[in-house]
């Protein structure tokens, strides 16, 4: 899981935005629309990142469709120290 987290969050083209999404979701569960508003990202971009995160088991969603709410997965919460280390290395 740690390897997946490092690659999906710091090795890929969209990693930086996925970290921002994950940081938001760690504060409270949100749907894609809400995330797009808060992060000033395109709705379709957020959808794409959420799909990648779900496919890799980093986040999970409750419900389906438009109102579906996303939270960090159990695995991600178990490895939250890794996420924090990654977040700490973001230079803004």
């Amino acid at each position, binding site marked *: 899981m740690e390897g997946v987290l490092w690659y999906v969050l*710091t090795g890929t083209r969209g990693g930086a935005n996925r970290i921002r999404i994950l940081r938001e979701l760690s504060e409270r569960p949100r749907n894609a629309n809400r995330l797009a508003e808060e992060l000033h990202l395109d709705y379709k971009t957020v959808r794409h990142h959420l799909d990648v995160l779900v496919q890799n088991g980093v986040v999970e969603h409750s419900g389906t469709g438009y109102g579906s709410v996303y939270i960090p997965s159990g695995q991600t919460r178990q490895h939250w120290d890794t996420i924090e280390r990654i977040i700490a290395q*973001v230079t803004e």
Partner: protein
Amino acid sequence: MSIWVDIARLSVGMSAAFLVVLLFIWGRNLLTFRSKHALGLVVFGFFLLAQNLFALYYYLVDPTLSVWFATEMPDIAWQVLMGIHVLQAVALAVLLWVTWD
């Protein structure tokens, strides 16, 4: 000269092109994340790119060896080299595919 030579050279060229794109993505990530992993990917990509550029240089440019590769090397040897280069190009294409996300 045979088709094997062309496929081998093309595969090396494609590997180099894939690596340039990967290095661009990984390099940008290194600027964002000052992490060991991001640095490791950039260094890895750099050396693999160097390896492919060396191969291209000796296949196409080097005054002595490019002639030798083009005229003296038997087909069977080119077939083996082609296999190696094609496998590497496919591997890098897959890596680029997952990295593009």
